[in-house]
């Protein structure tokens, strides 16, 4: 019986000693952390996608508490809602940002840009880009090997087997920008989602001269400048044989879409045109 008591006393006193030691160490070396970091981390999506530019959601929460600069810090996945919530925790107001979406600016599908060679190397756009201009011969066009698909954490971008081009699924895309970094040819761009998801953009990034670009692809931007002239809002600029529509200035009037001789400018999610319906009626009549 005595042995049990001795053991109890010995172990108990050791435990007490360490407990007091730990208590004082805890008091002395306590890490004071802003409780708001935890609060903000709680409301973040928790995908750790890195779209904000920080290593995961915790890093982003720390950055918010540290800088309190909502102009530069933005969670593309959570969007305005989370920005508002985080701002209320920090006790500041935020301006709303327009929602954005990833846009693939290449229309060099199998039919538009026929294959001139067969690529059998490693399934990696980065390597194919390092190796040569690609199966269609366009040095800027999509290689279709799916580096963007691999990079997407949200399954929001998939290669369409019919066209061989990646397609962004609007409902799933969080505009985190992972695909933009993955694409070795900088084809993908973040653009404003637009009112009712309506968008107009130049579906090409080829900077070669018109005739050379057209040799590889039927729907290449040839840098003719017609769209620049017709645009009433001065939203289109032409640099190195390539037109670019500034989404901040574009009023979605669609004049450039009809003007483009190679249909390189595309409109997304617009209702069918009235004039077109009229034309068909006339033909029928």
């Amino acid at each position, binding site marked *: 019986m005595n042995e049990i008591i001795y053991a109890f006393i010995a172990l108990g006193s050791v435990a007490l000693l360490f407990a007091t030691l730990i208590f004082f160490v805890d008091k002395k070396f306590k890490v004071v952390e802003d409780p708001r970091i935890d609060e903000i981390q709680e409301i973040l999506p928790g995908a750790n996608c890195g779209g904000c530019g920080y290593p995961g959601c915790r890093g982003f929460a720390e950055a918010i508490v540290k800088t309190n600069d909502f102009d530069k810090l933005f969670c593309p996945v959570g969007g305005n809602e989370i920005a508002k919530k985080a701002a209320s925790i920090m006790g500041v107001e935020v301006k709303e940002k327009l929602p954005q979406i990833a846009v693939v600016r290449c229309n060099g599908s199998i039919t538009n840009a026929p294959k*001139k*060679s067969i690529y*059998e*190397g*490693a399934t*990696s756009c*980065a*390597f194919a880009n*390092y*190796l*040569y*201009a690609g199966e269609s*011969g366009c*040095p800027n066009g999509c290689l279709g090997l799916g580096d963007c698909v691999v990079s997407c954490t949200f399954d929001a971008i998939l290669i369409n087997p019919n066209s061989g081009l990646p397609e962004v699924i609007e409902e799933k895309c969080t505009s985190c920008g992972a695909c933009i970094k993955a694409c070795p040819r900088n084809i993908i761009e973040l653009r404003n989602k637009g009112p009712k998801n309506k968008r107009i953009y130049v579906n090409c990034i080829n900077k*070669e001269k018109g005739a*050379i670009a057209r040799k590889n692809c039927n729907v290449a931007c040839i840098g003719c400048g017609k769209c620049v002239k017709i645009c009433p809002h001065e939203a289109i600029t032409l640099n190195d044989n390539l037109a670019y529509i500034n989404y901040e200035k574009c009023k979605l009037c669609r004049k450039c879409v009809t003007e483009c001789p190679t249909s390189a400018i595309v409109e997304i999610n617009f209702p069918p045109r009235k004039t077109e319906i009229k034309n068909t009626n006339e033909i029928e009549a």
Partner: protein
Amino acid sequence: MSGLKTFSIGGVHPHECKFTAKKAIVTIPLPERVYIPISQSLGAPSVPIVNKGERVKTGQLIAKGEAFISANIHSSVTGIVEKIDDWIDSSGYKKKAIIIKTENDEWEEGIIISNEIKKDITLSKEEIISKIKEKGIVGLGGATFPTHVKISIPQGKKAEYLIINGVECEPFLTSDHQLMLEKAEQILVGIQILMKALDVDKAIIGIEENKPDAIEKLTNLSKNYKGIEVQGLKLKYPQGAEKQLIKALVNREVPSGKLPIEVGCVVQNVGTAYAVYEAIQFNKPLIERVVTLSGFGVEGGNFLVRIGTPIQALIDYCGNKHLEIEKIINGGPMMGKSLVSTEVPVTKGTSGILLFTKEYSHRTKIYNCIRCGKCVSACPMGLEPIVLEKAVEISNWDLAEKYHVLDCIECGSCHYICPAGRPLLDMIRLGKNKVNQIIRTRGN
């Protein structure tokens, strides 16, 4: 000749397929137009100094290499500069090229066309180096490193051996072999010139045992030249790689990330030695080279081709119209690169053009890695290709760097030996590229 030597780690034995061996070098007629890319050697592209519409003579300087690692480029025909425009080259992209419409073949003044063998070396060491630079000589083994840079020994270093690469370990290629047979004496004089420029008194020519005639010829002739020795080598790929050749011939190992001069060696190709001979003795710039055209069932041979000749002209000259060619490789089958167009011109680095029909042009199906370790034992640099492949696949550049991805010489032995047909070399090349980029940004 003492016993045969070879390097110790790794290596593979691909089929030799030297169908065009002992076919005499044939000069092909001038093409209608030549397309001379301004970036033909390692380093910075040269700067064009001619304008559209200008008339140039054969051998005239048309683009100047202004950077330290850069080489001069000379016109390979006499004619009118049609334009300076983008033209597809062996990189697979369009790069700037000088396009000249051929009129005739009138050589620039001062260049002597002669088959005589001129043995006296009258120029001094400095004069030799500056002349090599002026005449745009680059390493003709394939890496196209400007020769004047290679033979300018940095301060504090001393070259002991000049190693001459007559290995030609790539299957199919026979251009160096034929050059050794036909121009042996000239090559030996070229070696003497290089020895003088480098201030070394010992040169070793390494030749693989599948070229006994070349070994015999050079051994006999080299007796008349002081300090030149011919060494036979066992058959093994990639013996023609700089570091492997040094290991085989003088049993020294170049440290990781360092150049051969670190162990007192300078390696030059036999083709380069011949080009140096012509440049120094006859003022002739590097405007033509020997190219092997080969392939299974292909009417091929060894051809003396002007730089800038489109590959189509070479194929047409041989008349292989009955073949349905599916794949064209620029260089050897192990390290060469497929071409997407026959408009690609022959450049200073083109050692061979290989044509393949459908039967031989496709890769095998890719299976999962079975961890057999064949790639590890085949790697002549002692790397672990399987680890590097995985590191690149998951974009772990730190891991790739840690496993010395930059030491890969891209010989393709791992890819050749892999029973699962995995694209090991593709991934390693990508990794090298990325890691290089990362290191460059780190430096800033």
